[in-house]
């Protein structure tokens, strides 16, 4: 029997999905093995969890052992000449960049929040705003140790065990626990980036400008006003950024200090910890419509064409500006739907998505556009195309309708040859998700799982849903 003292409510980041889990927080390999042992004795599966930043049901499973790896958080080695860091899975992106920046390095791929963990970044094979230029997180990992559910540890090197490497990275914790990873950092000459803001009056322009910018700027991210209709449908603001060349920053020693990267304490003179309370009254359709409209109009007038310098942290971690901003979505929570669509179909599919949301009276409160490139991971979400991420508030009464909307949008994405991203997902039906893969890919994953985890010990709510366990 598992001890009731281990019971905790384990929720997704979006506060929509969750369940009771028997939570283990080991800090050693032996501790991980012990958790597997207790799960086996109790006859329950094990769900892997990093920092718990996945929006939906990726890092949880009700009535199961939840193996929370956030206390496996040591930095094991750092080679400041080669820029190679060796860490445990619980190390967060925040600790990663703060550790390496002073030596003139930066993580080549970061998430929009710095609270994610390295284990989670590998499990989900996350991407950043520079996916077109730099690929996914996994592409910068050189090797990792993988512990399978039987407690056996093996080292998986990208160059030597390419197949297993590419299967573990991105398969949302279905094959084993990454207990150590070596990651290549990227050389930087300054702690600043140069950014440029431009506006696009409609979707076609937004996609075109993104595509034009992708080879000149390392980072390209678009924000969409999902409320705009008709000719203005898909209008938005684009932010491009690039690292500075040697000599462009007069005082690199200053800007490369971690302290110089700290995000502002106030946003518009409001302490940032209180900001979400101020936003809460506007978290409804009409309030958000005005916020989106004002953001677009101010960007298109005051900000148009501006070129400015920002710290890496300011540019990269937009989601951290307002701590706990997700609370504006309480009590229902939020889900995100991110679809990846090939270049040729992006405009049609995204247009249909935006229109479908508006027609269903479920307009997305926040829309984000990115440019992507293909990758060779087994469960990869990369392709030569664009992604549109849409945030939706969840209301208990309209929940079925929202889930139906997600299904409709996802089916359309599959028809266009598109893909999905497990870290963001909460609602895509398994059969639709599986249809987004090429023939044999899901079967290959399941075959590897049968080999590495014959007892099907590693399970998550997301894995059950998407793989149809």
């Amino acid at each position: 029997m598992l001890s009731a003292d281990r019971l905790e409510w384990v929720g997704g980041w979006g506060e929509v999905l969750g369940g009771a889990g028997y939570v283990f927080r080991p800090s050693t390999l032996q501790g991980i093995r012990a958790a597997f042992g207790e799960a086996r004795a109790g006859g329950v599966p094990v769900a892997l969890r990093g920092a718990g930043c996945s929006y939906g049901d990726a890092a949880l499973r009700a009535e199961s052992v939840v193996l929370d790896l956030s206390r496996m958080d040591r930095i094991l080695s750092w080679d400041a000449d080669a820029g190679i860091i060796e860490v445990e899975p619980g190390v967060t992106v925040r600790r990663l960049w703060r550790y390496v920046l002073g030596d003139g390095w930066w993580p080549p791929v970061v998430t929009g929040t710095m609270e994610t963990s390295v284990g989670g970044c590998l499990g989900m094979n996350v991407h950043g705003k520079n996916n077109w230029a730099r690929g996914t997180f996994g592409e910068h990992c050189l090797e990792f140790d993988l512990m399978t559910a039987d407690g056996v540890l093996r080292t998986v090197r990208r160059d030597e065990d390419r197949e297993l490497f590419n299967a573990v990275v991105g398969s949302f914790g279905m094959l084993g626990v990454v207990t150590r990873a070596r990651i290549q950092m990227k050389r930087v000459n300054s702690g600043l980036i140069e950014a440029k803001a431009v506006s696009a009056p409609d979707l076609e322009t937004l996609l075109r400008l993104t595509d034009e910018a992708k080879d000149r700027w390392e980072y390209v991210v678009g924000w969409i006003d999902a409320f705009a209709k008709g000719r203005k449908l898909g209008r938005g603001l684009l932010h491009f950024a690039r690292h500075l060349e040697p000599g462009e920053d007069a005082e690199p020693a200053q800007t490369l200090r971690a302290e110089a990267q700290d995000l502002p304490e106030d946003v518009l003179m409001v302490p940032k910890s209180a900001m979400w309370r101020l936003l809460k009254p506007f978290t409804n359709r009409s309030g958000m419509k005005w916020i989106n409209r004002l953001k677009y109009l101010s960007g298109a007038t005051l900000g148009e064409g501006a070129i400015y310098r920002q710290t890496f942290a300011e540019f990269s971690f937009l989601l951290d500006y307002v701590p706990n901003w997700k609370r504006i979505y309480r009590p229902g929570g939020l889900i995100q739907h991110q679809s990846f669509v090939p270049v040729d179909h992006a405009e049609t599919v995204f247009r249909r998505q935006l229109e479908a949301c508006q027609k269903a009276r479920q307009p997305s409160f926040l829309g984000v556009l990115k440019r992507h490139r293909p990758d060779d991971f087994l469960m990869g979400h990369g392709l030569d195309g664009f992604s549109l991420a849409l945030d939706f508030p969840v209301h208990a009464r309209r929940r079925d309708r929202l889930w139906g909307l997600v299904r409709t949008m996802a089916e359309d994405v599959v028809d266009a040859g598109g893909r999905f991203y497990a870290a963001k997902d909460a609602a895509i039906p398994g059969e639709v998700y599986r249809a987004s893969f090429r023939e044999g890919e899901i079967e290959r994953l399941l075959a590897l799982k049968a080999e590495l985890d014959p007892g099907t010990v590693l399970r998550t709510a997301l894995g059950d849903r998407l793989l149809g366990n």
Partner: protein
Amino acid sequence: MMKKTWQTALVVGASSGIGAALVKRLAAQGCRVAAVARRSEELENLAVWAGSVGGGGEVRPYLADVREPQSVPELFETITGDLGGLDLVIYAAGVMLPVQFEEYDTAKDLEMVQTNLSGAVAWLNPAAQRFARLKRGTIVGIGSVAGDRGRSGSPVYNTSKAGLHTYLEALRNRVARYGVKVVTIKPGFVDTAMTKGLPGLFWLISADRAAEIILTKARKGAVTAYVPARWRLVMLIIRSIPSFIFRRLKV
């Protein structure tokens, strides 16, 4: 406000009476219900019934005797695992054995204490512990108007229900700070096997009607609910009768 819906529930004492009616109503609302009782045939019937009505609900039968507390912790964990969660726990097991006016049958009396009170402690302790840790959940205990006064006619039935009321109140005071609801239900006369053939029944309601009221009260997170509500006034009056008068009444 969001309407509260339960996806998963555990009903102890589910084979007949109010317990069975609660199981049916919950299953009909789409809830996955673990039904615990001693009698397997009645439980199987409930499961078949739930399968036939549709609505996404489900009844899973578990055989257990509430007089055997040592088996509870493991069964409780099995049930939460099988249901994939637990939102609501109802203790509905109860017996009222016929007692003659001047009968002092200790075995009979202790059996009522075991079923009505000790069993509740055995089942609701793990429920309260779990819900407090998870900071959510609703516990419902089916007491009785009979627990409001010690009548000469059934001393230990009254005592067991009074004890249950006090236990539920204490549980509530323990877990309220975690947002967990503990609801004490005090039914009057309900048309079940327990009341069959009793003389002097009035305001008799069906078990299904009682279940409907109970679930409404539980959804609202009521503290104490008389079923039906008019019993509250009656019991207020009865509780106010001074002891020297009460002992002279034929109740």
